[in-house]
């Protein structure tokens, strides 16, 4: 039963993942607009922004595998600042072509920070639950594993 470890984001599936992320965010945006009855005045530029952010976010998250020797909390915090920097820089670049609301930077920071914190908290809880469940399994397996003798 050997298991092969696969990266969730690899060179082969990088583009499909970007497309999936882009589709999901775009769908979310369209559904939100539809349910709230509002219309986005900067439709084209926002879809391009979503694509750029999807691409860069996938790229940054893919780096996770190459940072094995760095403590995970540092990776999570580092990735947060890197992603936030990319997102705000993208908004700054777009600000040269379209008008950005005065609260735009703060709104975008919160829009990114809140889901990121929720995601990190879910990961943290799941991480500890996984260990707890694994310890229970190990205990049960040991009770059953009568054929494993001490050397």
């Amino acid at each position: 039963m050997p298991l092969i470890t696969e990266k969730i984001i690899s060179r082969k599936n990088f583009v499909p993942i970007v497309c999936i992320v882009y589709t999901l965010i775009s769908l979310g945006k369209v559904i939100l607009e539809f349910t709230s009855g509002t219309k986005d005045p900067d439709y084209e530029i926002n879809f391009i922004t979503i694509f750029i952010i999807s691409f860069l976010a996938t790229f940054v998250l893919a780096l996770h595998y190459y940072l094995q020797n760095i403590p995970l909390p540092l990776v999570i915090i580092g990735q947060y600042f890197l992603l936030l920097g990319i997102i705000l820089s993208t908004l700054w670049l777009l600000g040269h072509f379209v008008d950005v609301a005065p609260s735009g930077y703060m709104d975008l920071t919160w829009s990114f920070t809140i889901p990121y914190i929720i995601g990190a908290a879910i990961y943290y809880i799941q991480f500890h639950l996984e260990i707890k469940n694994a310890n229970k399994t190990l205990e049960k397996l040991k009770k059953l594993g009568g054929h494993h003798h001490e050397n």
Partner: protein
Amino acid sequence: MKINKYLEPNLTEKYIDFYYPKEDAETAEIVNYLSSYKNTLYGRNNEEAKILPIHSIYYFEIVERKCYAYQKDSVWQVDTLLQSILESYGNAGFVRISKSMVINIYKIRMLKADINMRVNILLDNDESVILNRTYKNAFFKYLKQLRKEAF
């Protein structure tokens, strides 16, 4: 290598005598191959050589391209590869925890999360090894699979 086989209807037990001019890598490989039939490995260190029952091994580690088998309080060099171990003994509780280590799940006392969200694996012989993040999901998946098969 010359192979002779003899049909002896009166024999009560099958046996193989293996003659070799010197103790070298090929010799060890052949002995390992034959030993694998009964879930044992041929291990050697500076002083002696020994047949190691697979269930007595805590973990395998690659150090400077050589594979070592760790028992409760002894270390043996074995002529095999981690991939071969996983293929042969994946069903016996051996799972990869890093690029250079394969561990016997039945020798784990418990898993512990450290402050850096790394998983420490505490073994029955009081040793502690680290579960690499890249192999974490595969490790937990393997445990789940064992649990499903066992209960």
